[in-house]
């Protein structure tokens, strides 16, 4: 495993993406979870305040999750997400956008209630190809503090 709990020190950052957001993916997600016109067609998106075929904010959260898995979660003793302090959808994510960003560790502590576990607070920022921040998320995740508890 590339990263251990001890690597998630406050201030450390991990790169996210890049991830090209396609029209097909936007529509496929929206059909299942968020079938509103601006997530389903270019014409309806252009007519909305979002300005084009736009990803559901819940889709953006899914893509963010995937970027964190690919960047570091799959290389760490991650056990579970505990919760999300905030998500801000700052700008629309439009078909053809390329998302990239950074995860920064804000806090790191050993769990008081679960032996062998630690909790980290992470801040994620995603931007588009123009450098505009599209999504900010702060969340808390549980990691095993040793290889023993990771495989228990």
């Amino acid at each position: 495993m590339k990263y251990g709990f001890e690597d998630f020190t406050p201030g450390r950052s991990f790169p996210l993406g890049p991830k090209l957001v396609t029209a097909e993916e936007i529509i496929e997600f929206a059909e299942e979870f968020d079938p509103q016109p601006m997530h389903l067609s270019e014409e309806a998106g252009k007519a909305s305040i979002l300005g084009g075929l736009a990803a559901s904010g819940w889709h953006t959260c899914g893509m963010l999750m995937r970027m964190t898995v690919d960047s570091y979660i799959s290389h760490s003793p991650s056990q579970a997400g505990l919760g999300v302090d905030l998500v801000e959808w700052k700008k629309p994510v439009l078909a053809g956008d390329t998302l990239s960003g950074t995860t920064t560790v804000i806090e790191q502590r050993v769990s008081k209630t679960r032996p062998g576990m630690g909790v980290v607070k992470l801040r994620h920022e995603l931007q588009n190809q123009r450098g505009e921040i599209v999504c900010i998320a702060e969340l808390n995740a549980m990691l095993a503090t040793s290889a023993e508890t990771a495989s228990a």
Partner: protein
Amino acid sequence: MKFIDLYPTDVRLELGTIHFSAASIIRYAEKFDPQSFHLDAEAAKNSVFEGLCASGWQTSASWMKCFLNFWSKEARRLVAQGIEPPKLGPSPGFRNLKWLRPVYAGDDVTYFTTMKASRALASRPGTYMNTTLNEGVNQHGDVVVTFESNDLEFD
């Protein structure tokens, strides 16, 4: 008519129920959250969850699906009664989302929304910011997810 006039604060609205099949859990996880406890029932037995369970993001996005289903029916009902449905806009985000319990393969989650507040935006006349408390409850009556959402509404 404003959302808050139709659905007063602190009244919990039932939105609908989603069944989480193993197939739907795996399908979501393959795209967005490929961790073993969301992909493989055997591997999940050895995780802190002790069974195949849905990505928390799938549990959360499923609230949206239920809300829209509820809202399309409500909008039709209101029109049929001669009431103009509230003009709901996009959401700038949410806060305090908690995944309180895992959602396991086979679970049924019933989603709710409760109006908490609506305030006029001084910076954008004719625009309101609604705050709602949203919840998902499994078939045993256990709350599995809660979050506070902000949503725009227009005159």
